[in-house]
């Protein structure tokens, strides 16, 4: 378990100028905020609203010795493992989903001790980010008690000072950098999300640096027109990256569904070729293009239109 450092994270925040300036930049420039050895928290969940444009930029830079945390991790952690960027995964679940079976690259690295997996419960991950976001060192909860998850992680309990009740004390997590993908942002970093928010608000507020990618960069007046949709204010965001289809091949609520055929092709290649397929995927889908827009364009307008239609069909009407 990493050291709890909420006061350090707070002091750092206090000491940082946070001007309301134009924070737009390319994904590559934004992801340069990540240093070797950092803890990167990836927003969204599983294959929903994953900040894929930012993940691809990170893959391109071939960082080393990273820790990645996520509510539920999909194959993006396999790509980071396969390129040698990742030492440690902190989450509650790794895979794409039941139809695709176990994650072979993840298994390869963790079973051989080449990467470690700190397995928390889903709520515990949420409370770790929430404690980090609240600026307190832990949160009490009634989950994870009695399990081997708690034993393996060295999770501590705490007695309620009023009743004596025993609770799990879930430690705060303050990631070095958070990647968050959203529907809309203005240039200052006021960001809005439609639909479910996963753990994104807490992930961002817990993190020391926050990079946001947005489907659309809008004028500040458009944010102010629907302020109840704003998930993060500008002073909690360090970089804003324009990224249409920025979660593709994963889904973005209301805009496009997940590209399940893309997952199928990935899973088949990994099954056939093992971990080498992960590296090949990165070479063919990340390195081969000048930027993420190139990868998206290669999917073709017909496929993207079909995914958009899938999303529209599921929206309230």
């Amino acid at each position, binding site marked *: 378990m990493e050291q709890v450092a909420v006061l350090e994270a707070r002091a750092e925040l206090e000491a940082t100028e946070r001007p309301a300036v134009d924070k737009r930049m390319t994904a590559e420039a934004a992801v340069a905020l990540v240093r070797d050895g950092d803890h990167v928290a990836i927003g969204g969940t599983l294959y929903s609203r994953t900040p894929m444009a930012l993940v691809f930029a990170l893959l391109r830079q071939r960082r080393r010795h990273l820790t990645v945390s996520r509510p539920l991790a999909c194959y993006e952690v396999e790509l980071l493992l396969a390129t040698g960027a990742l030492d440690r995964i902190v989450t509650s679940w790794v895979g794409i989903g039941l139809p695709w079976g176990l994650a072979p690259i993840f298994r390869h690295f963790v079973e051989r001790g080449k990467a470690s*997996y700190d397995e928390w419960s889903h*709520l515990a991950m949420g409370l770790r980010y929430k404690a980090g976001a609240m600026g307190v060192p832990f949160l009490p909860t009634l*989950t994870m008690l009695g399990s081997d*998850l708690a034993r393996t992680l060295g999770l501590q309990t705490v007695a309620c000072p009023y009743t004596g009740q025993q609770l799990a004390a879930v430690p705060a997590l303050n990631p070095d950098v958070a990647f968050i993908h959203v529907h809309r942002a203005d240039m200052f970093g006021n960001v809005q999300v439609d639909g479910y928010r996963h*753990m994104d608000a807490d992930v961002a507020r817990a993190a020391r640096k926050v990079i946001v990618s947005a489907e659309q960069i809008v004028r500040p007046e458009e944010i102010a027109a629907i302020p109840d949709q704003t998930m993060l204010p500008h002073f909690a965001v360090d970089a804003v990256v324009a990224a249409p289809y920025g979660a593709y091949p994963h889904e973005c609520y209301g805009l496009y569904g997940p590209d*399940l055929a893309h997952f199928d092709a990935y899973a088949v290649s990994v099954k056939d070729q093992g971990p080498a397929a992960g590296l090949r995927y990165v070479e063919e889908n990340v390195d081969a293009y000048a930027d993420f827009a190139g990868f998206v364009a290669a999917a073709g307008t017909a496929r993207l239109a079909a995914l958009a239609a899938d999303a529209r*069909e599921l929206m309230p*009407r």
Partner: protein
Amino acid sequence: MSGVTAEELMAVTASRLLADHKVVFAGVGMPLLASAVARRIHAPKLTIVLEGGIIGACLLPGKLPISTNEMRAAYGAQMLTDITDIFLYAQRGYFDYGFLGAAQVDMYGNINTSVIGTVERPRVRLPGSGGANDIISLCNEVLIVTQHEPRRFVEKVDFITSPGYLSGGNSRAGAGLACGRLGAVVTDLALLDFEPATRRMRLRGLQPGVTVGQVRDQTGFDLLADPEIEELRPPSAEEIAIYRELRDGSAGGTEDSAVPESAHAADQPGRVPAGPS
């Protein structure tokens, strides 16, 4: 009813355990399908909650969500919130049922979805808890549905990902798990519960045509048996038809033809079907 699969049998049996006007926190796959069947047959006011932050989930027949965090899971929902918030509703005590599958379950209802072997030397590293640990720790009554095989029903799980009654007796409460109890385990062979004193798994009912001996053969530990074992009612034609429609889409129709309008009519009794946009 001929040609009923083990999966269909489990889903229908489990669906009957869900009462109307209750709230069920369901995992994807069979727990979600069984919950949807219950809404169609006898529990139209059953509220389905999914860990992606979705309250009042419905199903679009033939387009079941694979993840609890995707748009298909959010279809027709009454409320979308965040993940942590959903689990805090559970911790507050709002969720009558938690409904889980299990790769490996032991005589005290402990579930392993983490590792075959040990964490230090894993033979197979499984995906992990996801929300299962929280669901079994925090929901009022937990239902487990899984296929009845010796490799799944083991005396002691390799790793307690999700705590049932731990080592039996009062050990669950002793560990600080102040909430929740394990209600039933539903399999393709039987209905089981947990004996109140020892908290050991106990045979309560048999699926049609199944014998006690068959259940014991497929269980990797010494199973307690209730003095009065009931024979479970076989699935009705209606239950099976609804299950298959939800899973596969409308019978006879192409996948897309009927979908947007019929889905509301199908899975939301009492709600006026919305027109196409």
